Every structure is written in structure tokens, then in C-alpha cells.
């Protein structure tokens, strides 16, 4: 059965909902005068989206508690991203962040307040005053539930705007004719039925794919469905080698302990009780960018300074909050305090939290321009009617390493811009007829997975993928490990072609969804490992033991990777460095 919408959004996190809000705006009428028919399809109920797990805040130079300027925010973003950030986009991000935060407040977001009733702001890693002089209070927050508040506010506003939702629809394929997108196919969890959605414009806002790794802060649902579906249809993915490990995941579990803990004064310590960041980042200390702190933790561990002291990769360090006091922890960081009590039996008021780096954020993804239009080639040509925003997209405002709070900024700024551009586009554009066999590839894949034949268990393949990504494509990398990872992933992708469901039912078949997600993760892992092997330098989150220096002459380029017939081919695009010349990166 085919459904038809002017604007179709895949994914109901912050960027998807913001785009839906803009696209469905009554003021942006289509030719007939009616407002654009807008639908959101999401494999989760919208309120379950992972935006809701974002804790610490959204960065914007409001200057509510001390002097701040958007150009400082833009510069921090560029330097934080180790100069792989497109600088025009970063300036736009920092300037529009201010409007976005006020807009969210006006729409009802429950920000924490200053004594004079303004939006309160706190420190976060890599955010500085006057181009690096010292930390600045830039992160606007709602306790440590900022993402939860953004998700709720945007969903509530979409309800108000009458946006149509298709909950628990999992995207299977995108239909692209030449360079024109005309719809998607998706499977409905409740019935097992495959639906075609015809649309003038489609936005992918499917979030991240941290589930490639064994230890991750990401939700089970973060399997990169959008980028994988597009990659299989010939769309290149950009900067896939850059994946952020957040320094403070709960030991063994990967659950995130927000950087806001360090913003409020928390200190990382090794087994000797030393504040080891003094040796790695003289000025910003525990508020250095995440890539540097994750490497510092691993270096401490390798030197035998982890808590167990045996130098193995699963050793850990401590995040000390005992000097902050009960009031700060329970009022400003209530969820974190709760996580620690629930999962560790540790009260952070009294004892430090054991932490280790956890796979957290994909800087790379679907390449787009500043209006969310998907880029098709190294020359920067775009697809018509195809958009991406949020973590699945790569504008790039995060470059080689994202700063804390900039993910929420990214999704509201570029979710909104994409939604507006889509609304304008659908007003002028006509529907494109879907090819007669548009739904076939999706049906064939579902039929294969559910044909009742015997095949290997997806769980085993998944476990092997997570382990190889964690051990060989993690914080420190080298050619031998990456070569091995690429070979292992090729083999796992081969085995995946034989995999079959364990659950033979049609309705609510979560087992089938799990396998479809695994297929997506395998494709993205393969692209990530291949791109990581190609980039023979160290930059931001991509640290190569065998190429420890940044190499601007050769590698100040965005990588592009295509997945064609099981092989990866690569190319590159220039980086916009028009405002700040690349310099060595020290904090």
C-alpha cells in the first residue's frame, strides 16, 4: 500500500521533530494553499528517541552569566574538531544557536534559571572565552535532562501542529531516480507489512550508530539505519573514520556520565589519586575536549595507572565528585547521581565514580550542505528532495571531534534549516512517479531473512562485530589492526548473507528488526574501518599509533566513502578553512 506526503521525515529525535515542525508550518503553504502534508515515521515511539538521553546542555553564547560571543563558540567548535570543521557552517551554528535556545524556551522548554530568572549556563569541555583563555559558561541546561526536555518540547509542539506520525515503522530502503529522491519503503512492526511512502522530499534523521561497538553510551536503537540505507543506494558517507569515545562512561556498562559533572567541578584521578589531566591539558584540565581526555585515560591505563593497574584495555579511572557536595549533585546532576546509585551502588556524594571511555558519537555520516541537502559527489553536487540532519548527517560542524553540547545545537539548528528548505522545496516541486518495482528490494530482503531456511545466529555475528570494532577500531588505531578489522568485517558481512530469523511470526517481530539493524551496523562498521585505515594521520578522535601527527598537507580533507558491490571506494572533499588558519591544537 502506498502512502503519499509532501514532506516525509524518517526519525523522531530532535532534528526530525524540529524539521517536522518547520515543514508542517501553516505559514509555508504548498501550491493549493494547504499546509504541507508532513509525516514522521520512526521505529520507536517518538518520546523514546535517543535525543532524550542527552544530559548536560545545549551550547549558545547567550552571555547570561559571563561575557560570551558566538565567534568564540564558532572558534572553539573549529579547534575542537581539529580543523576538519567547515568554518562557515560553524559560524552559522554558533550564531543560530542563540536564536534556537530562545525559541525552545519560548516553546516551553524548562531550562534551569539564574537568580535573575534568565536561562542558566554552565561550563563544558572545550568551550572557552576569548579564543582559548579559559573555560566559559555557555551550556544552557535543564538540570541533567536537557535532551529529554528538548525531545518532549518538540514532540508536544508537533502534536499541536497536527503532524502525522507512523510509530514503529522501520525504514528499509530509499527510492532514488537519478539524483531525485521520491520516497522510502518501511516495515510496520505491528503487522510485518512493507509500506511504500511516496514523497516530494525525504529527510533522514535517524541518529547515531554507536551500537557498532561493544561498550557504548548509545541506545539499542542507534543502528545507523539512515546512513546504511543511503549507502546501499550509492550515496557516499563522509568522515566515517571519526567516531567519538566519551571519556566518562560507567565502568563496564558504558552508560554516560555527562561532561557537566566536570563542568560543575568533577575531577578525574588515577590510582595514585593524581589529577592526571594536569599533564595533558594545562589550561583546561578536566574540561579539555573529549578526544584528548579519552586518550589521556587510555594512556594512564597503559602506563599502569588505572585502578587495577594491569595496563589492560578494560581497566578504569575515577571521576571524583565528593568535594561538590550533596546540593550540587542532587539539584544540578540528579539523574547522574541516580545512575551511580542504581548501577554501581555508589553514592557520588561520598565516593568517586569508576569510569572508562565509551563509544558515544558519530562525527561522520551523510554529507549535507547547510540546508540539509544530501551531497552526491566530491564536486559537492546535491540530490533533489533528499535531506539529512542530526547525528546521521555530516555538515560538517563537528569535524574530527565534537564538542560537548554541540550535538543538541546541531540538531535544532540544522533540523530547523532542513525543515524550512524542505517546506520551500515541496511548495514548488511535483511528485515523481515511483518506479513499478520500487518496493521489490525491500520485499526480497525481508523474504530472505524470513524464508524459514536455517542460517547462522545474528547474535553471534553481532557480538563478533562489536568486539572487533572495540578492539581494532577504537581510541588508538594502527594499520595492522585496521587491516585485520576490514578483513573480519568482510567475512562477517558474508556470513550475514546467510543469517535467518529465529522468530517465524509476522506481527511484532522484533527479531527481524534486530537482524535488519545488524545488517546496517555491519555496513557502517565496514565503511568506518576502511576509512580509518585510509587516513594515515592523527586528527581529533582518529588517533593512529603509526601516524601520530596531524598531516594538513595531505589530509585536511573530508573523506567520502561509497559502498559498491561489497567494496568500498573513496574520494575526498575540501574543508572550508576560510576564517581561521589551522594551528597546532593545544589546551
Amino acid at each position: 500500500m502506498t502512502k503519499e506526503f509532501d514532506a516525509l521525515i524518517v526519525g523522531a529525535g530532535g532534528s526530525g521533530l524540529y524539521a517536522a515542525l518547520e515543514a508542517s508550518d501553516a505559514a509555508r503553504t504548498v501550491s493549493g494553499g494547504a499546509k504541507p502534508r508532513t509525516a514522521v515515521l520512526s521505529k520507536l515511539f517518538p518520546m523514546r528517541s535517543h535525543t532524550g538521553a542527552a544530559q548536560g546542555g545545549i551550547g549558545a553564547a547567550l552571555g547570561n552569566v559571563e561575557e560570551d560571543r558566538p565567534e568564540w563558540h564558532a572558534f572553539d567548535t573549529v579547534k575542537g574538531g581539529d580543523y576538519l570543521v567547515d568554518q562557515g557552517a560553524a559560524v552559522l551554528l554558533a550564531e543560530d544557536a542563540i536564536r534556537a535556545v530562545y525559541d525552545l524556551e519560548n516553546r516551553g522548554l524548562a531550562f534551569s534559571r539564574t537568580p535573575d530568572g534568565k536561562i542558566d549556563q554552565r561550563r563544558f569541555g572545550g568551550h572557552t572565552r576569548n579564543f582559548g583563555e579559559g573555560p566559559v559558561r555557555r551550556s544552557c541546561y535543564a538540570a541533567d535532562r536537557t535532551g529529554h526536555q528538548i525531545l518532549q518540547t518538540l514532540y508536544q509542539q508537533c502534536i499541536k501542529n497536527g503532524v502525522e506520525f507512523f510509530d514503529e515503522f522501520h525504514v528499509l530502503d530509499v527510492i532514488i531516480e537519478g539524483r531525485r529522491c521520491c520516497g522510502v519503503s518501511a516495515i510496520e512492526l505491528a503487522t510485518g507489512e512493507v509500506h511504500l511512502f511516496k514523497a516530494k522530499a525525504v529527510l533522514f534523521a535517524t541518529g547515531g550508530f554507536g551500537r557498532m561497538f561493544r561498550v557504548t553510551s548509545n541506545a539499542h536503537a542507534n543502528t545507523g539505519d539512515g546512513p546504511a540505507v543511503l549507502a546501499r543506494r550509492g550515496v557516499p558517507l563522509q568522515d566515517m573514520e571519526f567516531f567519538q569515545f566519551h571519556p566518562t562512561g560507567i565502568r563496564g556498562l558504558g552508560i554516560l556520565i555527562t561532561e557537566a559533572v566536570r563542568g560543575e567541578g568533577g575531577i578525574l584521578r588515577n590510582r595514585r589519586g593524581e589529577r592526571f589531566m594536569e599533564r595533558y591539558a594545562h589550561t583546561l584540565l578536566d574540561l579539555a575536549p573529549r578526544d584528548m581526555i579519552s586518550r589521556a585515560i587510555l594512556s594512564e591505563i597503559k602506563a599502569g595507572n588505572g585502578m587495577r593497574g594491569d595496563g589492560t584495555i578494560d581497566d578504569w579511572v575515577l571521576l571524583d565528585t565528593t568535594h561538590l557536595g550533596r546540593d550540587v549533585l542532587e539539584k544540578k546532576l540528579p539523574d547522574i547521581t541516580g545512575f551511580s546509585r542504581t548501577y554501581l551502588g555508589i553514592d557520588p556524594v561520598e565516593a568517586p565514580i569508576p569510569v572508562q571511555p565509551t563509544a558515544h558519537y558519530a562525527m561522520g555520516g551523510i554529507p549535507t550542505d547547510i540546508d540539509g541537502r544530501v551531497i552526491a559527489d566530491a564536486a559537492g553536487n546535491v540530490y533533489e528532495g533528499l535531506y539529512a540532519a542530526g547525528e546521521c548527517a555530516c555538515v560538517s560542524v563537528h569535524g574530527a571531534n565534537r564538542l560537548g553540547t554541540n550535538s543538541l545545537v546541531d540538531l535544532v539548528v540544522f533540523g530547523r534549516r532542513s525543515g524550512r528548505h524542505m517546506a520551500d522545496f515541496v511548495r514548488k516541486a511535483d511528485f515523481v512517479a515511483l518506479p513499478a518495482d520500487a518496493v521489490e528490494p525491500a520485499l526480497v530482503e525481508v523474504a530472505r531473512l524470513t524464508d524459514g531456511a536455517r542460517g547462522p545466529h545474528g547474535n553471534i555475528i553481532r557480538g563478533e562485530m562489536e568486539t572487533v570494532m572495540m578492539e581494532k577500531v577504537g581510541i588508538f588505531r594502527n594499520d595492522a589492526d585496521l587491516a585485520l578489522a576490514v578483513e573480519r568485517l568482510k567475512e562477517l558481512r558474508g556470513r550475514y548473507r546467510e543469517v535467518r530469523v529465529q522468530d517465524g511470526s509476522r506481527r511484532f517481530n522484533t527479531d527481524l528488526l534486530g537482524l535488519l539493524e545488524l545488517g546496517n551496523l555491519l555496513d557502517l562498521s565496514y565503511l568506518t574501518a576502511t576509512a580509518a585505515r585510509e587516513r594515515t594521520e592523527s586528527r581529533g578522535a582518529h588517533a593512529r599509533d603509526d601516524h601520530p601527527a596531524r598531516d594538513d598537507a595531505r589530509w585536511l580533507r573530508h573523506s567520502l566513502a561509497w559502498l559498491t558491490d561489497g567494496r568500498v571506494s573513496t574520494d575526498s572533499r575540501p574543508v572550508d578553512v576560510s576564517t581561521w588558519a589551522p594551528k597546532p591544537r593545544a589546551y
Partner: protein
Amino acid sequence: MRIVLRISRYNPETDTAPHDEDYPLDIDPTASLLDALIRVKGEQDGSLSFRRSCGHGVCGSDAMVIAGVERLACKTLVREVADGEDAVLAIQPLKHLPVQRDLMVDQRKFFDSYRSIKPFLINNDATDGRERIQSQKERAAFDDATSCILCGACFSACPVFEKNASYVGPAALVSAARFLFDSRDKGMAQRMNVLDDPNGAWACENHFDCTRVCPREIKVTKNINATKREIDKVKGKK
């Protein structure tokens, strides 16, 4: 430690009614019940069906009845509910909502109730392009209610539904309170028809089961009672 998960199973394609099945498991006592369910699905029976996403108690996907009490599976550790070796843990879907399959319930009624209270800020006054000013005291007045993740635990625990299936329910009332006590909101009048109704706030009988099970520790009943007082205030009663 060894435990047995006694899971309520129901497949609409083959079963006429739910039945229990036992799954023995050797598991670390500090693992969560969600970890346990994922292991059963991965190692013993791939057809076991449940929802989950964030895995740490903020997305609200995996509320279910564990050992007789509504909890989030991901936020409940085995050691909290297993009273020793070979403990049998009953795992059931939420009550008061139709079972779709195994531990999955149809949440439409729950979300319809939520939407009925107009869960968005109602205030058409123009702003000057900056934030509306709100004091820390005003912000604190509705802080508790902002924690709600719409998991449905309270909806399942509330005994009022046993006799009144049309009750709007505790979660919707918490969402209403989140806006009623927000100094920026002006939507009380628009919400009165749902709140000031026998199936609205007045249906609450102060059983406090919602408050007891809330995985976010929201004082649900307190929020409902404050809403009742606000309704009286608006209607000019003492």
C-alpha cells in the same frame, strides 16, 4: 547466580491467552533485568518480544511488571528482586493496556490520554526574541513533573482503572501539572474540560500506587492533589 525468569508469553498468531514459560539463567547479580531478557532472547528463544531502547532508565520503553511490581527492566538489577539462588522472577506486561505480544502492550490509550490534556505550553503572548523570565522558585514549582518519561508504570499500577477504564490516568495528570504550575503557561482554561471531570483529576482516590512505582520518583499523587486544588481555585472554591 542462578535465577529463573517466569515470563508471560503471548503470540497473537498462535495463542488464545497468555501463558507463563520458565527460562533458567546464570547471571551476574548486578546485571539488569533487561540484560537478562536480552540474554534469553539471544541464547534461548529469539521469539521473545519486548521493547527497549536506551537501556538506562530515560527512554521509558521497558516498563513491565517484575516480581509483582511495575518497574523499568533496565533500571532493575537482578540482586534487587532475586531473593537468593534459584529465585523465580515473574515477568509480566503492564496492566490496563491490551497485550500485543509477550511483554509488549498497546500504548495507544495511554498516549491518547496524554495528548488529551494538551501537553504543550499554551501562551500566545509575544516575546522580545529572548527568554521569558522565570524565577528559580517558579522553575522549582514544576520541576518534579518534568522528570516524567511516559513509561506507563503508573498507568498499570493505579487501582482506579479496575473500576473506571475511562480514567485519564496519573501520567496524563502529571503532564498537566507540569504546565499548570509553569509560570509561563496560560492554558488552565483549555485543560479544564479534561481535568475537572469525573474521569479527570477527580477520579484519583489517593491510593499512592503510582507514586510508589514511579521509576523517576515523581510524587505523582501529590501532583494530582495540587491539580485538584488548582481546579477549585479556578472555580472560585476555597
